[in-house]
């Protein structure tokens, strides 16, 4: 039976086409639905500690008592320096570290991005592990100003006090590096680049170094009021990379179970562990992952395969103070100190939906893959579709081919029928993809001030460009080749997009998923010269899901201006090596342009009266 089906289908192609269409729609629906199922208890799992060596919360943490007097004094010192320049700050911090008997290094850096210059001076101190051999290190980092540009009084004071406190312990097996970075975005990046000798020209090398960094904990404890409610664990890295889940689990377990400190993820302050909150936490995590930006000083470490998290305090009505935070950090460091190997046991690919609930890649990957499969299936359908063939091929020619044997490996359909013209659609797709470099380069080189004007110009260009392309093609190409050309270009574009997204899903699931979601209208973006209204609907739909619209959406989500987002993207590219703009401009935007070309050609062809039947 099974062998007979293709024979039947060859005769009745529309069954195949419908099957493909149905499958592609089914894939998309299942993909979306499976994402929404993830927060359910049946699909997500409780977190657990994989690496037995960590033993989180198994030791008593002693920080507190008189140490808190020292923290308060350092708080005042930090407060006094509040508005000083970074070199004054660095010198004073270096002095305090030196008096604790640590090796101190300073590092100036300067980055140029989006017309702005980002300079600062990091200061760090190395506590040599007693008996240690300088092969491994762990980092305690406190940015001078946190990601919201608030003075990180508590974090810096705590780091200074902990550096003295840790020195008295003889149990450290790894060196401890105390890093006070000048800011939360560029400083840590400059430092970690220089630590691996991969820094640029305007960044100083590090004078003091230690061994391979095994883990990083960032303390973000801004404000003068020292009571706090809960601990916010931030974990997203650059390009959507994540730290090992064991590190997060360790921090969560220690702060919740040992210290009685509530932990929050993704700014979900009152998590009730219900479906809605889980879903929101997950979606927020996905947005951060998709943007691939830095969410704190820890983000810069993650691309170096260094697991890092930020512990940020939240709220000021609670009963926790620097003692609790100090003990939490101490206990996390005791756990990190226990590590015998680099973090490797637990997951690197996961979505967290509550502090103690996650899904791993095996469960969530299918949803992004199914979206990509939907695009690929549409592409295959377009290829199989007889409308992809130029109807002009002579029957004589076909017969000739058959007489010669018909197996010359050309693009002659195996099942007979006219040839597909590949040159024009291929050149459209490849050309448009090359054009993607232009907005990418422009946005990464433009000054911040002119960013918004450039943005609106590029929106305008981007709206007009597809129409221009379709007019150009309609004018130049012979009428019978027009429709197949648009048809095939859409096919190639979708094929490429589907392939790319399925690959991307294994690296940055969220980015792939979101682009897949925004690209769904591309599957309907047909050339319909006979039906201008449906083309109009398609056109509006496409415009609403363009990369520019997505930019507006992101800007609205963060409550920022579009130019701020673009500035951030440019900064991300130059400082962090963030790949999101590349994906957006060189993959998504070209696919969108090709989709628009297909739709716009409907109007153009209708206007020029070249409309074939499609």
């Amino acid at each position, binding site marked *: *039976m099974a*062998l007979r089906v293709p024979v039947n289908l060859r005769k009745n192609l529309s069954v195949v086409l419908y099957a493909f269409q149905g499958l592609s729609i089914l894939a998309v629906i299942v993909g979306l639905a499976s994402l929404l199922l993830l927060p359910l208890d049946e699909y997500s799992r409780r977190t657990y500690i994989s690496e037995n060596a960590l033993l989180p919360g198994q030791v008593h943490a*002693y*920080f*507190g*008592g*008189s*140490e808190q*007097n*020292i923290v*308060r*004094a*350092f708080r*005042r*010192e930090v407060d006094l320096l509040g508005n000083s320049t970074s070199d004054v700050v660095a010198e004073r911090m270096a002095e305090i570290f030196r*008096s604790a*008997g640590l*090796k101190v290094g300073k590092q100036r850096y300067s980055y140029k991005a989006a017309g702005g210059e980002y300079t600062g001076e990091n200061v760090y101190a190395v506590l*040599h592990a*007693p*008996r*240690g*051999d*300088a*092969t*491994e290190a762990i980092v305690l980092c406190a940015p001078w100003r946190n990601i919201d540009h608030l003075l990180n009084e508590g974090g810096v004071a705590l780091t200074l006090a902990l550096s*003295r*406190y840790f020195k*008295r*312990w*003889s149990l450290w097996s790894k060196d401890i590096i105390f890093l006070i970075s000048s800011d939360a975005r560029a400083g840590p990046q400059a430092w970690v680049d220089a630590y*691996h*000798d*991969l820094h640029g020209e305007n960044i100083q090398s590090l004078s003091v*170094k230690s*061994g*391979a960094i095994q883990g990083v904990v960032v303390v973000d404890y801004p404000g003068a009021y020292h009571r706090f409610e809960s601990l916010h664990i931030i974990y997203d890295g650059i390009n959507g990379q994540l730290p090992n889940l064991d590190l997060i689990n360790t921090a969560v377990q220690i702060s919740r179970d040992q210290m009685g400190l509530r932990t929050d993820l993704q700014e979900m302050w009152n998590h009730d562990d219900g479906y809605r909150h889980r879903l929101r936490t997950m979606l927020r995590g996905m947005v951060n992952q998709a943007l691939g930006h830095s969410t704190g000083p820890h983000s810069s470490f993650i691309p*170096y*395969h260094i697991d890092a998290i930020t512990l940020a305090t939240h709220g000021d009505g609670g009963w926790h103070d620097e003692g609790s935070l100090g003990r939490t950090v101490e206990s996390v460091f005791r756990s990190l100190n226990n590590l*015998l*190997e*680099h973090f*490797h046991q637990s997951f690197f690919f996961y979505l967290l939906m509550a502090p103690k609930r996650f899904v791993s890649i095996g469960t969530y990957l299918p949803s992004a893959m199914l979206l990509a499969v939907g695009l690929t299936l549409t592409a295959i359908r377009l290829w199989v579709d007889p409308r992809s063939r130029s109807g002009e091929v002579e029957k004589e020619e076909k017969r000739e081919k058959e007489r010669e044997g018909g197996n010359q490996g050309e693009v002659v359909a195996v099942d007979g029928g006219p040839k597909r013209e590949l040159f024009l659609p291929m050149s459209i797709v490849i050309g448009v993809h090359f054009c993607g470099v232009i907005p990418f380069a422009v946005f990464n080189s433009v000054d911040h001030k002119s960013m918004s004007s450039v943005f609106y110009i590029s929106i305008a260009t981007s709206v007009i460009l597809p129409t221009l392309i379709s007019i150009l093609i309609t004018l130049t190409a012979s009428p019978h080749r027009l429709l197949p050309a648009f048809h095939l270009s859409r096919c190639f574009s979708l094929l490429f997009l589907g392939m790319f997204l399925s690959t991307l899903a294994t690296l940055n699931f969220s980015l792939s998923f979101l682009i897949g979601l925004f690209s769904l209208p591309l599957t309907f973006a047909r050339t319909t010269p006979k039906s201008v209204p449906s083309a109009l609907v398609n056109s509006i739909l496409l415009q609403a899901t363009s990369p520019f619209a997505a930019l507006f959406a992101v800007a609205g989500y963060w409550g920022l201006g579009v130019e701020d987002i673009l500035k951030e993207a440019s900064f991300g590219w130059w400082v962090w090596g963030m790949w999101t703009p590349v994906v957006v401009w060189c993959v998504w935007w070209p696919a969108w342009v090709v989709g628009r070309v297909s739709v716009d050609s409907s109007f153009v062809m209708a206007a020029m009266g070249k409309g074939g039947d499609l």
Partner: protein
Amino acid sequence: MTLLFARSHQWLTPSPLEILSRLLGFFLVFTLSGNTVVADTYKEKLDLQPLSGQFLLASFNFQNHGPIEAFNKQMFQLFPRSLGQILQYTHTRELHLRFALGRWDSELWGAQPGDGQNAGGTGVETWAWVEADNDVEAEARWTSLNNALSGLFCASLNFIDSTRTIRPVMSFNPTGDYPTTNTSRLFLLHGSLPKEPVCTENLTPFLKLLPCKGKSGISTLLDGHKLFDASFQSMSIDVRPICSPHTGTCDIEIQQTIDMVLDISRSLQRKDSPVPRPRDQHELICDTSKPYASNEYCYPMDNSIDLPWSLSDLFGRTISGGCPFAINLPAEETQHVCIRAPENKLTTMETLELAAPTLTEGQPDLKCYMLRENVPFDLSFPKQQPPISPLRQEPLLYAERSFTGHGQEHGGVKTVLRNPNPNDPIEVVYLESLPWFMKPYLHTFKAQVLPVLAGEEDVISELYYRPALDRKRGTQLEAKLIVPPNSVVILTYDFEKAVLRYTEYPPDANRGFDVASAIITIPPQRRRSDGKKVPATSIRTTSLLLSLPTPDFSMPYNVIIFTSTIMALAFGSIFNLLVRRFVAVDEVQRVDLKGKIRGLLGKLKKGKTE
């Protein structure tokens, strides 16, 4: 007021057991002196030197000489028999063995004691001159030497195989004298185990080699808990023949040393409370000059005093009298315990008659004490306020090595050599012994001088390179170079990481692989500016942790399951398609069960009738 005084205990009435043992000792000495062979001479000495940053360097030195003839006839007196027989069996003429833990902080502590000659790289390091007819024989003897030493010292020395053995060309020279041996028959082999954790199981055999075995003499201070809590510790054993140029007689010398750097505040604190919990509020030393100073706020003050300590505080016990073999020596050799501290700080000396310090001429800050048998000895160092600034000898060279780059495929090594001397260049030999899975690109080996000086571009004068063979031997890279005065030479090279076989990974594969310390040797040379001799010095960098691409070790299991499933599915369905014949239902012959049975029965009947 600062003072330094020694405490000693009064002579107690000896117990009957002690009398017996002393009698036995006399009897032994008597019988030995009756022999024609000259007895071994044994010396031991403990040097204490405060280092900056509240550290104390304690250098233990145990030295024994004996005539080589007796050694060759296997007549061991004080020379440890266990080691002597191994050396003889493997024809080892000179042996150097190092166990080290921690790192020497030359920024803070200055030059290493003994010009770094007694220190080794992290873990275990050993090199020896083995006498053999040819290379193959030398290799075989080296292997059996390491296997024997491995058993003797409870260390994994047996893992020094051909991949971890190198033959340095420029870095090492024999320290012994070989008037009779043809030096072309001596083979130098060197091996290191950077990952070996040095611990008490290595200390016990070390102490057993001593004549007093840690029961008396300075070696009583060597307690594993204290020794391995030190910030840096290095144990070494050197055996070499030395010949007197005057008489022509040769001795075999064994020298055992232990250098340890104790963190005084940590050691003392450990005595008071093993857990360094926060101090009581009134114990805090706060800076009261701060405007915010109050009960709630305490800006900690710099530690402005040197804590008082005594040997018993730091080592947990006192020296239980001198080692009997090391006390009946000429006067100048009976300085058993010496402490070096700036002269002006030692204003008053209060001592008891039994342990009067002797002063060495020309070294006013050196105070030495003699040990007496069965007389416990302790030494106290009082509180110093303001703290003494210990003498710090500027090292000849600072060396630091680190990895550069990231990722699992390529990497780089960067070594920074800094010559602090403002006038004289220094010649150094840089030796790197790399495991085979770390494959350096020699064309990327570069030396950069900072600050850039004209005519100083090419600082490398000689380069010896022995490339690695996969799974057979490691890379050996030796470079002779000159570090210009007051400048920095940065050596860099790139390397590629090999992918190991599944079974070649250790159980803790994700920890990474240790790369042995680079050995920097400064050959004896004369300074250009003042013609002063620079003694042969050696410096070790820290070891490195190389992370290799590591497979997910549960993967093979998954792969086996997946492939088996796919094989089963694919094979099953294809086999099914190939073998099964598809026919229409009406074409199938009806199976006539009754007819068949009838036929069978018929056959049976037929068979019966026939």
